[in-house]
């Protein structure tokens, strides 16, 4: 009985290989349905263009366009946590105090700085939206540094 369960679980896992991971709150599906990806560029991010290009490419892959949502300061992080925006673009340190609350990408268009406290351009995503997080991580990794 136990072996049958393990085999069924393994078969389910293999079948799901291509479709994992999915978003906990369905952000990717919503982007595809509404044809819009809501992005906020944090104030004081003059070099946001490479990150905007990456999320723009992601949106195009899913038949959507970018909708820029102007939100200031702390409100932007809360808006991301609450699912009011899909991504934030801004300067974040690797050891950002927000690290546990939002999912930060690797630095965009540059390598990881030696100083963990040094803020660099990154894309922040809502925690648990693992399909969106993996897809944008792949785009950041492919981006020439």
């Amino acid at each position, binding site marked *: 009985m136990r072996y049958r369960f393990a085999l069924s*679980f393994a078969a389910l*896992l293999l079948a*799901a290989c291509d479709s*994992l*991971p*999915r*978003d*906990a*709150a*369905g952000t990717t599906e919503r982007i595809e349905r509404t044809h819009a990806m809501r992005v906020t560029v944090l104030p004081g991010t003059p070099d946001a263009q490479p990150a905007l290009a990456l999320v723009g490419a992601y949106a195009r892959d899913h038949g959507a366009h970018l909708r820029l949502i102007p939100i200031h300061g702390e409100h932007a992080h809360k808006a991301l946590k609450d699912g009011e925006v899909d991504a934030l673009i801004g300067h974040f340190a690797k050891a950002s105090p927000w*690290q*546990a609350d939002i*999912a930060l990408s690797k630095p965009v268009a540059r390598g990881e700085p030696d100083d963990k406290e040094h803020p660099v351009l990154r894309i922040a995503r*809502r*925690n*648990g*939206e*693992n*399909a969106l*997080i*993996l897809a944008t*991580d*792949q785009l950041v*990794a*492919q981006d020439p540094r």
Partner: protein
Amino acid sequence: MSLHSGIPDAIAADVRHGERLEWWTLAWIDSVVVVMALVMGASQAMKSAVIEDVLSLIPAIVFLLSVHWERKRANNRFPFGYRRANSLAFLVAATALLAVGGFLVYESVTTLVRQEHPTVGGITLFGHTIWLGWLMIAALVYSIIPPLILGRIKQPVAKRINDKVLHTDALMQKADWQTGFAAIAGITGIGLGWWWADASAALFIALSIIKDAVGALRQAVAELLDGTPRALDSNKLADDAERLIATLKARFGDVDVRLRETGRYIAAEVDCPPPATIPTGVELMDEKAWRLASLNFRPE
């Protein structure tokens, strides 16, 4: 072996086998901790699994220490030897098991209450960015194999040498592989977008670990309070202890017989004058004669 120190010849080989198994446990679980730490990323489920693995080393370590002390000779400062080190080790091992269960319950409940959505992103290896969850599942599969094998081998050895620490360690290994399976289900759940799957699976396993730990703690406390020897896997009286009481009563009449346990050894006290011929351990306990460390008679 003397009355109060050393390991009886009848179980010496099995005790050495138990020691070898515990060294293997330390080596395997250390390697598991390293592999898991390399892939854990920001996953709370994986962090819990790593902490659980580190805590699971405690019974193996205290078993090795208690056997080392058991071999030491009695001396002026410890005239009854160090055999009770095993009882103390049992208490420590049971407490460690309870700590693992308690920690997993805390982690799971806080995750469910806060409705935390675990994030498992990508990792770039050899130019390809893949989902970190696949590496985590591979590491967890590796983490399941050693405890699954070692736990099963330890149980019969623990029974033969009547070692509750080794038995508790086998329970800890069961907790290890069950947590590993729960974590795999949890990571898969995260992949499917079910944020609650991970914590729910861990909570289910944690409750079973706590049940085992509370049982072990009750036995450990009974042993330290000089209770009648308990069975290896429950708080019931040990079968060989009940047989010994019946044998002593059959031989010396309806007298009070008290048994207590020091580590794996039994001390018996019979309320009657010493007989002309003192029965031997084999006469009283057959193949478990080594368990009977002392037999005292207390005339009225």
